[in-house]
């Protein structure tokens, strides 16, 4: 019964799915071959069920490492609720790694960096866009693509200084009066984030 309905719905919206199907076939190429061991093992165990799709077949393949250092850095900055920057070509990004502010230029060595609360700045020519990120990870690949995944980020000009001071005072007080380790840890995190916010506003 549902199959009939699906067929009827498909025939009604005949134009849209075919267009999407045409786009979908463009992405399939070499990635399918890499999952062949999985697909074969699957077919042995469950021949009647189609194997599930895997992420490699759902994303655009990344370009290989070029021979010469490229002039621009491609940046992807993603948050859980949106992709802030997607495939933008910039000159430099400065990420707040746990070891300090790290500048990433095209041709940077491949790096995995864990981020601490701080300011992320994106430099494009003479424009600088600054975001305050809560934490996350930054991957720099050998082909001059930088992926920054953060949990929360706001542009620095949207931060309210009064609330920052208040939060800092609150958490410092909580840190003083904390009794259990968990409360101490939570208060410490609050203090760290708010002091970083403070530094972001001033610096």
């Amino acid at each position, binding site marked *: 019964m549902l199959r*009939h309905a699906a067929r009827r*719905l*498909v025939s009604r919206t005949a134009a849209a799915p075919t267009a999407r199907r045409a786009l979908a076939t463009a992405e399939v190429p070499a990635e399918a071959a890499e999952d062949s061991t999985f697909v074969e093992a699957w077919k042995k165990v469950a021949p009647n069920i189609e194997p599930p799709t895997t992420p*490699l077949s759902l994303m655009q393949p990344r370009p290989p490492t070029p021979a010469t250092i490229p002039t621009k850095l491609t940046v992807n900055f993603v948050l859980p609720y*949106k992709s802030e920057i997607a495939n933008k070509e910039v000159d430099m990004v400065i990420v707040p790694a746990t070891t300090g502010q790290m500048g990433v230029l095209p041709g940077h060595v491949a790096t995995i*960096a864990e981020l601490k609360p701080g300011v992320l700045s994106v430099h494009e020519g003479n424009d600088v866009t600054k975001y305050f990120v809560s934490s996350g990870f930054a991957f720099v690949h050998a082909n001059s693509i930088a*992926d920054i995944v953060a949990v929360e980020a706001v542009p620095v000009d949207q931060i309210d200084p009064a609330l920052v001071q208040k939060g800092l005072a609150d958490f410092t007080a909580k840190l003083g009066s904390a009794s259990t380790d968990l409360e101490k840890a939570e208060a410490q995190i609050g203090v760290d984030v708010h002091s970083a916010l403070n530094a972001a506003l001033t610096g």
Partner: protein
Amino acid sequence: MAMAALRREGRRILLSPTVPNPSPAAASAAVTRSSAISQPCTPLGARSISTQVVRNRMKSVKNIQKITKAMKMVAASKLRAVQTRTENSRGLWQPFTALLGDTPSVDVKKNVIVAITSDKGLCGGINSTSVKVSRALHKLTSGPEKESKYVILGEKGKVQLVRDSRNSIEMTVTELQKNPINYTQIAVLADDILKNVEYDALRVIFNKFHSVILFKPTMVTILSPEVAEKESEAGGKMGDLDSYEIEGGETKSEILQNLAEFQFSCVLYNGALENACSELGARMSAMDSSSRNAGDMLDRLTLTYNRTRQASITTELIEIISGASALEG
């Protein structure tokens, strides 16, 4: 009204002398059952067929049609809201796959299959598909030295898997969608799962939303930090991982641990949103076909009703006319 009473009286008088008398209820039921073929003349004198049964059926079918239409519209409006959030979250897992690749055929001792299903039903076959894929994966990843366990998110998956794999279920989580799905909730959930479950490889199974009528089961593999290091040393697809410098933290393993946990929460977030979208899309099409079926059934019942009604009127007329002609001549 008086005619109906007379009709009933006539039936009672006629039925008592005849021995193998079909009850009027059976006769009318037989008529409604054979809705495709009309049988105006019922055997052995049961005269007028009650249209009450057909009318009741029509009322209930019409109510069902209204309910399913309303459910479809509710699902459509909810889908619009969730779809934008899902599309925005699609960029979240791509950096991890770009860095670590995807190794679905990795051979490890402890596999944990995280199946994301829905809590509510009436959403077509998506939960059954997820459960089928999970079961096949369980068969694939169990062996002499390997074992695999389930972590189930969603009531429907739990109900289906508890039947035959009760011992392999490590933990279940329900009422995921009581509040709209947000990252904080999923992060806490991911933390919970990682604390309680030992794993070498996590496989997250969900229905990816391609369009309102197309949902495909998708599997994302996340390796534990130890296995990731082993795979990168072995070379192959993950061999590049070694070439990356690690910034921050004390040891490489600490960073890889954080990375694996973060990857899991991101993948789980995207998977939960995609599954929610697929559930709503499947519910839309299921309710749509339901209302269409109800409409067809209503048409058929209307025809039967009219036929029955007209047959009983004709019978009455025949009786009256034959009675009148008997009086005259």
